[in-house]
């Protein structure tokens, strides 16, 4: 399985994602510069975290116009799996590939700490192997992770099972105290309408090596691989077939 890790000017989790995917999860990951014009041959795309374009104007606002983003959008439309992590999530929101927007953290601080998230939906390639209700320990590191959407959008996300991860305590309770940034409905990650595009604020690549205290994040990458290898292989081939 070949995974593209897109590198924007200001990305800083690209190497970590690349390492975790290649050396731990066992997929073939490649760094793809933001000016790339094609994603041919890739089976999945990861938009990593960081501060693309210095987060100028709004986090993700400028990166969404990077040349590669047209390809990412086309790839997503064909059903290809796309994961936006942290700044990558913000870019997907700004690009309109996911609904809603990010506000500054309610706490006004940059929150860099371990966090717990509950798996709310196994209906995405990144969570297909995970049990719904499972609590993962995956760290967060952001200043703008306060997810906002209009009430009708939130209602749709909930109704359609597109809330993928929710901040919770270690026992899986999605309480106000467990919400690190003020995010609506404790949302830590959501999926697009087809389920193939997922944005999440926590960093799975930072929870992929036991050396770092948790390997819960690795399961997200492993789920992607299992999805692709197993049942998903056919649909991935169909999506790629049009490329």
């Amino acid at each position: 399985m070949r995974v593209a890790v897109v590198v924007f000017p200001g990305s800083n989790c690209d190497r970590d994602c690349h390492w975790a995917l290649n050396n731990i999860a066992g997929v073939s990951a490649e760094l793809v510069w933001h000016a790339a014009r094609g994603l041919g041959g890739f089976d999945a795309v990861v938009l990593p975290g960081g501060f693309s374009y210095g987060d100028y104007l709004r986090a993700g606002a400028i990166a969404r116009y990077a040349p590669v983003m047209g390809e990412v959008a086309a790839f997503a439309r064909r059903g290809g799996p796309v994961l936006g992590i942290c700044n990558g999530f913000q870019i997907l929101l700004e690009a309109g590939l996911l609904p809603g927007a990010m506000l500054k953290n309610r706490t006004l601080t940059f929150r860099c700490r371990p966090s717990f998230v509950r798996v709310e939906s196994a209906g995405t390639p990144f969570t297909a192997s995970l049990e719904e209700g499972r609590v993962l320990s995956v760290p967060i590191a952001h200043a703008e992770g306060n997810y906002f959407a209009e009430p009708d959008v939130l209602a749709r996300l909930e109704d359609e099972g597109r809330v993928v991860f929710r901040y919770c305590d270690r026992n899986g309770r999605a309480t106000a105290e467990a919400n690190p940034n003020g995010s609506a409905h404790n949302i830590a990650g959501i999926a697009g309408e087809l389920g193939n595009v997922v944005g999440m604020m926590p960093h799975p690549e930072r929870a992929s090596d036991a050396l770092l205290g948790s390997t819960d994040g690795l399961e997200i990458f492993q789920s992607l691989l299992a999805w692709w290898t197993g049942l998903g292989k056919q649909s991935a081939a169909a999506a790629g077939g049009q490329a």
Partner: protein
Amino acid sequence: MTGTDDRGMAPANRLAVLDKLYEGKAKILHRTEDPGVLLVEYKDDATALDGLKKGSIEKKGWYNAEISAFFFRYLASRGAKSHFIASAGERRHLVRAVEILPIEVVVRNVAAGSLSRRLGLEEGLELPFPLVEFYYKNDFLHDPFITRGHALALGLANEDDLDELERQALQINKLLKEVLTIAGIRLVDFKLEFGRRDGGIVLADEISPDTCRFWDAGSGARLDKDRFRRDMGDEAWAYAEVYRRLSALNVSDSDDALATGSAAADSQGGAAWRTTWQAAVEVRLKPGVLDPQGVAVSGALRANGFDGLDGVRVGKLIEVALTAASRAEAEVTLKEMCRRLLANPVIETYRFTLSSTSSSASTSPSASAGLSSGSASGVISGEGAPA
């Protein structure tokens, strides 16, 4: 591009306009008192999918007239002649009457549309060389694709004509690509129509987002009628964007050539009357959207003893300087800047004030209506709160 003021226009522009000769999907042809000259009026109406889809795109006719005029002047300055004589006010061109050939000539640089469907090529695939295709202009048959052999068998043209069509189409393609590259536009494909005049074959019809596929060179965004055909939305923006980019090109070094390439009446085409605008764009969080910065600043103000404080909201001020042909154009451009980048419509609203900083506009004899209707130093504002 030209304005509406007809001072200094040559007699050609004062030709009396007679009756309507023909009304098509996108344009109306009128006779003038000179039998060799027709007046073309560009409409906002849009049709697609062989007439199945009908609609209208705001200001499309205006943009297409300006964009076509730009290309015709530009091509003339590079030796590629067309039927175009001059702009004759908003949405109108004076053109030479020609006998339109029943062959549409399509040039393709990149696979898209019917070529992709027919041959199963991915849209966006760069072709190894420009392809020239012929289509039989016949509404009843839905303008079918034809080979050279078909064209000859039907008696639509002879071998020499077809060679000439291909030669001109490829030359026009080369010239258009040159200028569009500078404008950051990828010329994917386009359709041309030609007419006979004085024994020769000259370019006719129009060159606009209605007849071309224009993709943004960076993002690949569609800047053409595909937005309408495929229900992508923002059609009006696409036309405005192409116009804006072409208007921004500095073609002054070829102004003389531009003028001689068409009627002297049209010598105002160029950038001489364009002016600079200063915009102050204010971006605010929508009412009701939590503003953590405002809360923090409010707390700090209270700590400084400002007890009567009722609330603080923090927004952004963005100053933009831009060149545009008129106030209306500057406004359209700014709204697009806000909509696409400066504000996020999910959480923010914007408004802007616009003021002119240059007086060149008011001294130009061809100042457009937008400028002549108000003081050049006046301030107007635009506002937007997308739902």
